[in-house]
């Protein structure tokens, strides 16, 4: 197997006296989709933010493409992007203007063609000239996903990317992500509170609780190991411990 695209070693984050992430280690291979599962407050978002250089780890290391994030921030972040239901793009710009700005920020060439491509792929044609302020929450989610895919990342961080989508669009988005992985070898780390989605999407799952990894493996492995019927039951068992 080729060396992993993402390597996290003993990563911890303390906020004052509170430990949000407690010595976690994991790897993501090229083209792998790793699901990060865990109850509210388990430390998923904090982990993402450390991997995006938005929060400084208390200890441990994050490496991507064989480089250390601390000392190679620009090189790494150029090849990474993220999306979440909880982020937005500037309201006073149109959908298309926002995408153009992002493309420039990442120094893309052929901006017009790339934007057209994304608009088509995520079915945003009807509202590409709308002000971002006027989007529904599901449309906003699609826009933030478009901005993430627009920059042709090698690693994608998705924090609850489908939380506000209707089942039809959510299904399409999952299909797009799987396509993209197939076509470009995109690696994805993502969270969701939708257990079926987790089982369907993830090659491997990490179960996080109170900042620690409490289970790791394929969905099937984990379900079998905990002697439960499905992932949802595993979640309930772990979360209620």
């Amino acid at each position, binding site marked *: 197997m080729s060396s992993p695209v993402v390597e996290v070693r003993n990563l911890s984050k303390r906020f004052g006296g509170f430990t949000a992430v407690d010595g976690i280690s994991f790897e993501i291979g090229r083209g792998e989709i790793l699901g990060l599962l865990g109850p509210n407050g388990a430390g998923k978002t904090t982990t993402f933010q450390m991997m995006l250089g938005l*929060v400084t780890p208390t200890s441990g290391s994050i490496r991507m493409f064989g480089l250390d994030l601390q000392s190679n921030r620009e*090189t790494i972040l150029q090849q990474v992007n993220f999306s979440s239901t909880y982020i937005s793009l*500037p309201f006073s710009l149109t959908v298309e203007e926002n995408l*153009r700005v992002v493309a*420039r920020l990442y120094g893309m060439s052929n901006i017009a063609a790339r934007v057209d491509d994304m608009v088509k792929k995520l079915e945003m044609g009807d509202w590409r000239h709308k002000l971002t302020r006027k989007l529904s929450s599901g449309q906003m989610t699609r826009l933030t996903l478009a901005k993430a895919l627009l920059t042709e990342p090698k690693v994608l961080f998705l924090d609850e990317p489908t939380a506000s989508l209707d089942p039809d669009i959510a299904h399409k988005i999952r299909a797009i992500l799987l396509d993209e992985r197939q076509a470009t070898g995109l690696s994805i780390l993502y969270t969701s509170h939708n257990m079926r989605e987790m089982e369907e999407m993830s090659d491997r799952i990490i179960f996080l609780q109170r900042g620690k990894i409490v289970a790791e493996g394929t969905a099937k492995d984990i379900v079998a190991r905990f002697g439960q019927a499905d992932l949802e039951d595993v979640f309930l068992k772990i979360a209620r411990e």
Partner: protein
Amino acid sequence: MAYHRIAALVIRHLYLYRRSLPRVMEIIYWPFLDLVVWGFITVYLATFQGQMPAVVTFLLGALILWDVLFRSQQGITISFLEEIWARNLMNLFASPLTPSEFLAATMVMSLFKVTAVSVVMSLCAWLFYGYNVFIIGLWLMPFMANLVLTGWIIGVFTTSLIMRFGQEAEVLAWSMVFLFQPISCVFYPMDVLPAWLRGVAAINPAAHVFEGMRGLLATHAAPLTNLGLASGLNLLYLGAVVLWFHHTFNVCKERGSLVRVGE
């Protein structure tokens, strides 16, 4: 520093101005109103021309120059606030954009605002009051450059405070600069200050600009001392305040508050 990332931010702000009336008013209408009010005051004061020579020149010139400083500061701070209001800081700082590039973009925006405001005000002063700013001559240029720098210093300082203390500090974007107005000696010479305050004003680069401008108008001597002091102090403070911005940025990443500013 990557030029394309700075350009991306500038274009993002220009998109914003293109369709926002309040934002355009900020650089055209408010400065214009300022000028009209002060214009009438000077017209009135000019009727005492005998007792108060050159009062018109002083007041209108000072007002335009003060606005240069004010808009320069706003260019920095408001550009940062726009990102907070748009909840865009996370998108920006999870990209390869560096804090220095971010600052550079706000400085470019600041130059845009200053240019727009100076053109509007100078033109109005000339049209309505027959006042020619360039009466100060070519010395106007280094004076203005120094005021822009002072505006950046106050702007970066205020931005760091807002980043660190969040929403409660937002009001500083409009009020901070007026904390410096009394010791900037915009409309009166440094001599009128009480001795202890004169000491404070002496380390304020803006005070040396306005002092220099008055000296120039009164004596026509080259204001080299004032310009030298203003430039030296400006460069010193700008360096310090940019370092402090970077420090604050790192503190916020440490506390995990960078992506929560304004929430």
